[in-house]
């Protein structure tokens, strides 16, 4: 720049601007003319309320406290209220606060919230500046979220597990658990919205305990867990993790590994001495619990913290129910069970093992001796499907087989095994068989096949289990129904004849399988394990009392909202009641609920006296 020229100054130069007299003005004659609005413009919001789950993350991140959550009934149009993993609320935005920073859009886990290109709104009414944004308001989307650049941490930490070849060789625990760094990173992802808590049958305080893990305070974390779940370490390994199915990250990325975070935190503690719920003063009341499964243990723990003295009657030689006998060692090591049951015993719960109610001790006597009785016997007997030829000794029930392997140390197996069923128990069986075959035969010339009515898409087993089984070499025969067992001439089993399934659920969505009778095949094998469900056995209850016990149409024990059966003072929980979804966490949840009910009953507050 030549500064001299400027220093001189000129009278005439300004006159050159006269040329603009003859040029078209660049004035934009709004509103006659408009200019296009930028594609990423951050204007008034748009929200797809059907996609929105009301998680409230937009509200939490808003720097201006502009977002409140409006009840679904007030948003001006009907929405699906009982959507799974959703709160019946939707964001309402106060434009007397909003700073149009679009952090809410960046943080929206479903992608329902957007900003529009429209930012022209005037009104003389100051109250007219807050509304629930809807798609019907007809605004054109502007700023939307980007999966590449997002403050959300969409990717989950990879969990290390043993390689299929390695883990097959033994019953060693296959999931290795998070390292400290991984756990912190995974815990960091949590947004604390609490949508997961609804999915969890026990309504555990998930955001709180994840926050505590993030802060490195494992004791605080486990303390939060024990409030709702007395077996956190076990659930950290074998839970059906419904919470993860609801996690808001599922829409744009991978859900948080809530279960494994729980396992991480409990693994950091040798025992729970310092973190147990504080015990209330003794009340002198006595409660008997029949069955030492998860629901019984849960009820026992909470009752003892409430000051009652609790006795558990367990017919097997160790407490734990299905956890002790059914779940294979590679998923749940025995020391974990000992740790958590030991913790429950340390609260003063007496566990009487090898006591069978109805034989060693009479149910009527329990009713007399104790102030309340809790039945948590679970479904401990295998259900048969009345298969032709199932009376053969080489056709066994899954529950017996698993117990033999886990508790009695059975290690023998034949070379070709057929597992009937497509649920998680069937997977446990198949994978246990795969291990036994590896141990006995190094998997040389062995097969393990499963047969299930359900096709891949509706198979009840969880995807992780199916994937794990496939990795370990299990062969699947989905959408085949067992017809009859075929025998060799020497009386040993040759195989299983199966027929093709037409459909499993009829048009009313009821379980009512139909088959193509002409499409049949034979699966060859010499050992069949039936894994199609379990049932309870109430033979210990005397006949006159049994008549009083009310059942639901689905043949489950009827209980009120506090777990009390139709017999006053008798409570029930676990898999025998209808609220259970057949997993440990539901059993723990309704054990806890029954404990509250029993406490009320013992303090004379029972609904029916």
């Amino acid at each position, binding site marked *: 720049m030549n500064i001299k020229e400027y220093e001189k100054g000129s009278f005439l130069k300004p006159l050159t601007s006269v040329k603009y007299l003859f040029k078209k003005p660049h*004035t934009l004659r*709004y509103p006659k003319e408009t200019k296009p609005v930028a594609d990423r413009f951050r204007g008034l919001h748009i929200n797809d309320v059907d996609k929105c789950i009301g998680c409230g993350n937009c509200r939490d991140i808003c720097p201006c406290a502009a977002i409140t959550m409006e009840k679904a009934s007030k948003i001006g149009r009907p929405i699906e209220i009982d959507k799974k993993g959703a709160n019946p609320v939707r964001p309402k935005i106060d434009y*007397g606060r909003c700073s149009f920073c679009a952090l809410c859009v960046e943080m929206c886990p479903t992608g329902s919230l957007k900003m529009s290109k429209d930012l*022209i709104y*005037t*009104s003389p009414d*100051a109250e007219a500046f807050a509304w629930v944004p809807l798609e019907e308001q007809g605004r054109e989307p502007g700023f939307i979220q980007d999966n590449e650049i997002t403050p959300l941490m969409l990717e989950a930490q990879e969990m290390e597990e043993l390689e299929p070849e390695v883990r097959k060789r033994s019953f060693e625990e296959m999931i290795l658990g998070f390292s400290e760094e991984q756990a912190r990173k995974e815990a960091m992802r949590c947004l604390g919205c609490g949508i997961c808590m609804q999915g969890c049958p026990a309504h555990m305080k998930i955001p709180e305990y994840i926050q505590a893990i993030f802060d490195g305070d494992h004791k605080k974390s486990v303390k939060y867990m024990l409030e709702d779940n007395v077996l956190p370490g076990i659930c950290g390994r074998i839970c059906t993790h419904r919470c993860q199915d609801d996690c808001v990250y599922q829409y744009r990325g991978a859900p948080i590994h809530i279960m494994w975070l729980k396992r991480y935190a409990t693994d950091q503690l040798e025992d729970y001495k310092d973190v147990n719920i504080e015990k209330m003063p003794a009340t002198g009341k006595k409660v008997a619990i029949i069955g030492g499964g998860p629901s019984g243990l849960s009820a026992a723990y909470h009752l003892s913290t409430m000051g009652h003295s609790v006795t558990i009657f367990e017919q097997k030689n160790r407490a734990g129910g299905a956890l002790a006998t059914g779940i294979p060692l590679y998923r749940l090591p025995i020391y974990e069970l000992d740790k958590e049951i030991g913790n429950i015993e340390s609260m003063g719960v007496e566990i009487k093992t090898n006591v069978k109610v109805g034989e060693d001790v009479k149910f009527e006597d329990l009713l007399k001796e104790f102030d309340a009785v809790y039945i948590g016997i679970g479904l401990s007997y295998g259900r048969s499907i009345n298969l032709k030829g199932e009376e053969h000794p080489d056709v066994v029930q899954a529950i017996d087989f698993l117990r033999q392997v886990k508790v009695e140390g059975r290690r023998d197996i034949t070379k070709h095994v057929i597992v009937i069923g497509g649920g998680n128990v069937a997977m446990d069986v198949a994978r246990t068989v795969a291990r036994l075959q590896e141990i006995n035969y190094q998997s040389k010339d062995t097969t393990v096949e499963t047969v299930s009515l359900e096709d891949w898409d509706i198979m009840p087993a969880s995807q992780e289990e199916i994937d794990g089984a496939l990795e370990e070499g299990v062969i699947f025969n989905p959408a085949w129904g067992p017809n009859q067992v075929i025998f060799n001439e020497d009386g040993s089993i040759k195989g299983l004849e199966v027929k093709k399934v037409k459909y499993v659920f009829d048009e009313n969505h009821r379980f009512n399988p139909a088959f193509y009778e002409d499409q049949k095949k034979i699966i060859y094998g010499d050992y069949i394990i039936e894994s199609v469900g379990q049932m309870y056995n109430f033979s210990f209850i005397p006949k006159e009392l049994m008549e009083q016990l009310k059942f639901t149409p689905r043949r489950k024990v009827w209980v009120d909202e506090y777990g009390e059966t139709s017999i006053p003072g008798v409570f029930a929980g676990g898999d025998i009641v209808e609220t259970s979804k057949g997993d440990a966490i539901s059993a723990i949840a309704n054990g806890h609920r029954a404990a509250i009910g029993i406490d009320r009953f013992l303090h004379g507050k029972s609904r029916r006296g």
Partner: protein
Amino acid sequence: MEKMTEEQVKSIANMLRKRSLWMIHYCTGCGAMELPPTMTSRYDMERFGLAPYVTSRQADILLITGYLNVKTLRRVITVYEQMLDPKYVIGFGSCTLNGGVYWDSYAVIKQLDRYIPADLYIAGCMPRPEAVISAFRHLMELIDSGKADGYKRYKRNLAYYKENQRKVLG
């Protein structure tokens, strides 16, 4: 008969008023940043008979451009009271409605209409020039229909406004 003519005079006056509005040149907050483009060549609000003016006594519109600090509020009230009737107030953006991004600040008032009456608000933080022009046109409509009566409300409810003003100004 006489009453009729008075009404007619009023409506003619309103019609004329809306076509020649002077806006006082007082940038009370950051919303004033979008005023220069609106005033000058790009959007040229003089097309609507609007122009900035320097003194309060001659101005018709007071723009509260965004957040209002308590210290500024005192001056704004003075300016507003100096302005002659009819006078109109436009609140710019979020801050005049409910505190905006400064909702937790000890220095900024949260609701403009508790201290002086506002005739119109514009959404945005900050509003685009198009929105500002829309607001001016909206205000003209309100003046035309006689709905922009903030100055009358101020007189009518003077005790209420003074009480609120005293509370924050001390």
